Every structure is written in structure tokens, then in C-alpha cells.
């Protein structure tokens, strides 16, 4: 079945379900009644979703219906601008769940209104619509946006661990963050999660530097087991690592004393060595 046929079949099935489904709550029924005067069901659903006086359940149901309709492709085009406007309005709603959903949908679409709202929240926490971590995560959907400088600022500032984790994820493909990744990965005082994320980031943007640093960390008995395990895993799957380097390092690794170390680290070392043992 091609995509167009699949879409048509899916839309028809959803419409059938929509017509036969019983309302989930009296509130939803009331909302549907109120919307009955609207010219068509989809316009009514968008209006219900946007209307902050409606019960949250009715608004969630309306949002699901509209989301389903977006799958119809060009058939949804005439509602696209009004739905986008509704999402922008709900992005500042009092209901946290709806607000977050709206921001997520807009952010995936690289919507500038959502980005501005998130940036204002980061600049002025009193206006924040979501947590710092969530804001960074949403801004990172746009690699032509403002996420990178903000993420770099968060990593250097006094922010919670969740925010810093998201900041590192936001930098994952930024070649300008090589030094930052290397610094965090090498710094034993940094939380293990941040060091592991930095290992992934460094591996992506500068495989050579990652290789050098990872080998040093893996060979260091004073290092955190989890960081060593993650670094070894990342090294194991690194494409383009030269065979000679692999065999040299495998030789060093085979001589390491892993007694008393975590099961995960020993398993990672075994996997790495087995993959490089001549058959």
C-alpha cells in the first residue's frame, strides 16, 4: 500500500471511530455540544482545544482529534494556520500538560513564537513556561536556532543536573563545543552522567580527540567505572578507528586489572577484546 492509500485508509478508520466512540466524560459532551454550532468538526475541535474555559479532558480529546487530522496531509492545509495559532495561544495556558504539549508540537516545527517564549523564560525565570531542562530540549530541535549558546551558558553556570544534561544533548552536533566536551569528560569532579554525555558528544564531533581521551580514562583505575564503561562502549563502536590503534589498545586493555570492578565494565572489556581476537 502506498503512503497516499495508507493515509486515506487511516483517516477513514479514525473518522469511523470518532463517529462511533462514546464521549469519555460529561465535560467532553458539553464541550462537543458547545462546539456543535461551529461550521465543521475540525474547526470546532481546534476551538475547543484553544478555549481555556473548557475542561482539560475535552481539550485533550480535541487535540488528539486534530493531531489525527494533521496526518491527512493536504486535506489539513486549510486548518494549518488556525491550528498553529491555537498552539501558540495554548503555549501560555495555565494547564501545564497542555502548555507543554503545545510547546513541544511548535518546537518540532521550529516555530519562532514558541522559541521566543522559551527564550524569554530562560532570560526571566518568572516568565518560564517549562523547566530550564525542557526549554533547552525544545530549543534544540532547531539547529539554526539559539540553543547552542544557551546550552554553553547553562553548562558554565549554576543550573541543575537535568538542565546540564539537556544542554549537553543540545550541543551533540556542535563542532564548536569540542573543548567543552573534552573538559567535562576529563574532569573527575563532574557528575558521571555529564561525563558520559560529553563522551558521546566528543566522539561525534572530534573522534580523534575522543579516542585519545577515552583510552586514558579507560586505563585509569582511579576513574569512575560507569564513565570507563561508557567510554569503552563508545570506543568499541567508533567507525574509522585504525586497526593498529585498536590492537595496541586491546593489548593494554588485556593487561588491566579489572578485579573488583563493575560487571558492566568487565563485560565491556570482554566484548572489546573478543571483537579484536583473531579467529
Amino acid at each position, binding site marked *: 500500500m502506498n503512503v497516499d492509500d495508507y493515509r486515506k485508509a487511516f483517516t477513514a478508520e479514525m473518522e469511523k471511530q470518532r463517529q462511533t466512540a462514546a464521549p469519555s466524560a460529561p465535560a467532553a459532551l458539553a464541550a462537543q455540544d458547545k462546539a456543535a454550532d461551529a461550521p465543521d468538526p475540525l474547526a470546532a475541535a481546534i476551538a475547543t482545544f484553544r478555549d481555556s474555559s473548557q475542561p482539560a479532558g475535552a481539550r485533550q480529546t480535541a487535540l488528539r482529534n486534530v493531531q489525527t487530522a494533521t496526518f491527512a496531509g*493536504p486535506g489539513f492545509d*486549510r486548518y*494549518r*494556520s488556525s491550528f498553529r495559532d491555537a498552539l501558540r495561544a495554548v503555549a501560555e495556558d495555565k494547564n501545564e500538560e497542555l502548555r507543554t504539549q503545545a510547546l513541544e508540537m511548535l518546537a518540532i516545527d521550529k516555530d*519562532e*513564537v514558541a522559541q521566543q517564549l522559551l527564550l524569554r523564560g530562560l532570560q526571566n525565570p518568572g516568565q518560564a513556561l517549562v523547566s530550564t531542562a525542557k526549554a533547552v530540549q525544545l530549543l534544540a530541535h532547531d539547529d*539554526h536556532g*539559539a540553543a547552542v549558546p544557551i546550552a554553553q551558558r547553562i553548562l558554565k553556570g549554576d543550573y541543575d543536573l537535568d538542565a546540564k544534561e539537556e544542554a549537553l544533548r543540545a550541543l551533540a552536533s556542535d563542532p564548536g563545543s569540542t573543548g567543552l566536551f573534552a573538559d567535562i569528560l576529563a574532569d573527575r569532579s563532574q557528575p558521571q552522567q555529564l561525563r558520559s554525555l560529553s563522551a558521546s558528544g566528543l566522539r561525534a564531533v572530534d573522534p580523534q580527540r575522543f579516542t585519545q581521551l577515552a583510552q586514558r580514562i579507560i586505563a585509569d583505575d582511579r576513574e569512575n567505572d560507569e564513565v570507563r564503561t561508557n567510554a569503552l562502549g563508545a570506543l568499541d563502536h567508533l567507525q574509522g578507528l585504525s586497526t593498529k590503534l585498536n590492537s595496541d589498545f586491546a593489548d593494554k586493555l588485556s593487561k588491566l586489572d579489572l578485579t573488583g570492578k563493575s560487571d558492566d565494565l568487565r563485560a565491556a572489556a570482554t566484548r572489546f577484546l573478543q571483537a579484536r581476537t583473531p579467529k
Partner: protein
Amino acid sequence: MSAAAKTAETAEIAATVVAIRHAPSRREELVALLAEQSPIYRGLSAGEAERLRGFILASFEKTGLPPSALPFVREELQTGINPYTVAAAAKALRRTSEISDDIFALLVAAAERIAGNDDNVQYETIDPVDRVTRRTGALTEIIRTIAASGPRARPLWAAIDAMAARGNVSAEGMMAIDLARQALSSQPNAPCCCTAEPPPLVLPAQSPAARDVSDLALEDQSGATFKYRDFLYGRPSVVTFFYTRCMNPEKCSLTVSKLAALQRGLAGTELGSRINVGAFTYDPTYDHARRLQIYGMERGFRFDDHNRFIRTVGSFAPLQAKFDLGVGFGATTVNRHSVELLILDAEGEPVRQFRRVQWDETEVVAAVREIARPRSAPEQANPQSAIASS
């Protein structure tokens, strides 16, 4: 610069733009602000750069469109995908006395492109979060310009008819379409200036040749490093510009695909073995050799010593300065760029340029043929006298 400082600076520029809307004699100042390399876009995200650009373009509805701004409007209608900026370009044409058939065709194509991604827009304030000012659909704005352009032969607006028949535009858009169909099908008052050519783009005052980049370090898609002169001296070259993270399918992806088609076309002629074909990335930090290779191969480009995709090993700035390239940079990557193809002579200097248009392969081949022909003595003495733009 902090985000707050950038916002304040943009607000200040917007205030100046609003002031110029009330002083049409200053409208050329707005044209100068449309160059992607203008400092007003430096450090902005792609979304912010688009917004500022759209805000400036829409101002021509108030001031009237000077001929020097027309290439920017055409480019936006031809390649833009952001509803805000494309609708602004359409609004810019509103006070143009006559809209030629080729620009009309661009408007119709823009309407079709934006119909699937419509958005409600306003140009009174630059604040995207403005909740007060009334908004209109971007598609509606484009259709209104089409309607205002005067009667046309029906084949020219068949696509508008088709949009009406499909009915998959907003109620507001449908109303605009109905009005447009009435306006387009009424009796023409006078023959249209259908063959009017856009004026040439104003070239930078500084001669590109003034910048010497012969020693600029470059790397190609295979990882080989060399200097500018090693590749671009000795034979004429066709070069274009792109970056692999470009989000606009009407720009980099299309440019590289067309370059590959051009390369195939040239391969069957005697010119194929007498010129270089190259594509430079605007984003050399991100676009390492392997990325360049994959991007080119996926679009049918064939690599060899005279056909390369190239990144500057260090900063891109010297190359941008040499060719006055229409590209702006945000915090991490390109925030906006033009479509640019240059033909360089055997000393690596530009002798022909195609800017702000999706160039036509036949025209480029003809230009290359002209440049590759043996030169007379006076021409060789002063190759810069031959610079032309399209």
C-alpha cells in the same frame, strides 16, 4: 552579544525601518539592509533573520519598491519557504505599477508552495509574540498581490483555479482566491509589459579582485588539502556555494543537484576537460570532508581532480569577502544565504555571476563557453572589465 542585547538591537533596527516607511525617499536604505552579510543579521537565529528580513521587505508596500530591491523580491518568491518572508515579498510588489508575467508566475508558484504551510502574519510590529495586531494568512497576502496585478491570460493562473477547485485553503484564503479569479479574468486595460527584465543587481563597490586569497588553505571531499591557487588557477571554473545543513530544499540541495546536471552536460562537450567545477561550503567547521563527499554523491556529482567540493580549512571570512557572498551567520551556523554561482577566469577571479536566481544551465554553459574561448590581447590585459551579473 547576549540574547537580550540582540533583541534590543533588533528592536532598534525595526524602529528605524518603521520610520523609513513614513519617509519613502529613504527607501534605498532598506535595500542595503537586505544583503544577508549585513551586520544587522549577525548572530541571529535563522528564524530571527527571516523575521527581520520579512519586516524590511514588507515595508516596500508603504514606500514603493525601488528597482534595486526587485532581485531580492524575486529571489524570495522563487526560493523562499518561510510564509512570513514570502508573504512580505508579495506585499512589497503591491505598489508596483506593473507586474511582469515572469514575476506573476513566481507569485503563483509561491502561493502553491506556501499553501501547504500557511501561517498568520502581521508586519506592523516585529515582535513574533505580539497578540494585539490583527493577522492575515500568508497565502491570503500572496493571493491579494496576485489579484492586484491586473487581468491575465487564463493559462497563467490555472494553478489559482486549481487551488479553488481543491478547496484546501482557509476560508479567508478562499475569499481572496475568489476575488483574485474575478480580477484576473476581467478585461485588460492595456497590454502588459510581459517581457520586462529585472534590473541588474547592484554590485558591491569594492572590486572582488582586491582581495587576494591565492594562499587560502582548502580541503576537498577526499580530505586532500591544497591552496586556492592550486585548484582555481590555470583554467576557468564554475563555482557555487552551499552547506549541508541547509533547511531549504529550493536552495542548497537544488543548487548542488543542478550543478551535477551542469557537470553531466559539460562532460559531453569539449568544455568538460577544460574547466573546473567546484562547490564551496559556507559552513566549513561542520561540513568536514566526508559530509561534503556524501552530499555531492547523493545528488549525482562526480568527483575528480577538477571537480571538487571544498571547505576552507580555517575561517570562511576571506572567501566571503573576496566574492562578497550573500550569507549571514548565526551563533552556530548559517542563518540565511542567497543562491550564488560564479564563473571564474583562469586566475580565479570572477568574470560572470549569477546571483539571487536559480541559474539556467544553458545560460551558464554559454557563459563558460564564452570565457573559455581564446582571448584578445586587450581583454587579457583587463579581465575585470568583463564582469557581468545576471
